[in-house]
């Protein structure tokens, strides 16, 4: 298991509110832009997709790779970040 990044801890540490999609761990400028183009402009929209996939990390990673062109590490980081956020705040 990879150690969590500062970005991960920042995101998981508080309610996501209106944070942009790029505040998600694993989602940088480029991936963020691709997601925004598909309507996923806010972190909570991506959370919605995560929830639609029943919080299934594997499914979500797959979707993120397809939708944004993320690699496995980035997708895994994002899904872990959303899962831990859900564990804390949902």
């Amino acid at each position: 298991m990879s150690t969590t990044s500062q970005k991960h801890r920042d995101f998981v540490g508080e309610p996501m509110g209106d944070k942009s999609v790029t505040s998600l761990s694993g989602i940088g400028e480029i991936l963020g832009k691709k997601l925004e183009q598909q309507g996923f402009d806010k972190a909570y929209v991506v959370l919605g997709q995560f929830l639609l996939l029943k919080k299934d990390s594997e499914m979500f990673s797959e979707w993120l790779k397809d939708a944004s062109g993320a690699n496995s590490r980035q997708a895994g980081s994002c899904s872990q970040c959303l899962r831990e956020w859900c564990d804390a705040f949902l």
Partner: protein
Amino acid sequence: MPLREKSDEELSKLLSEYGITHGPIVDSTRKLYEKKLEKAMEDAPVEVPSPDKTFYREEVEEVTYITYHHSPVRQEVNSDVVRRRGNAEPDKEEEPLQYTEPPVQISKRTANHSAAPGMKESGCSVWKGVRLLLLLAVLAAAVYYAYCRVVNNEEDPSGIQ
């Protein structure tokens, strides 16, 4: 029919058949599920539907066994009964008997499939035990009778003496 043309419900059903846990199929999730399903179908095109089939076949088999067993056997037995008794008695009285007898036979025959062998063995052993006990009791009674006679014979002469 390609997956893309299937309705959401059909897709959902297929996903369940292939054991893929899935949420609602909406615009944002459909593509992913289509992909997953395609992959699953490629990996196991025959394997997954077959367990269902065998499961059903087993159920059907049981049912057919029962139906196969009663109709021919019952008819043969009944016709025999009718032929034998028909000579002595009128047919009208036989008819209710025909309907009361078969159910008993059916239950015996269906029971034979699963439980009967064990039951028969245990029944036999019980019978053997009972027979043995009866034999022992008769023997004991005979021995006791003989003993009593002997004792009486011994007492009688002593009484006389």
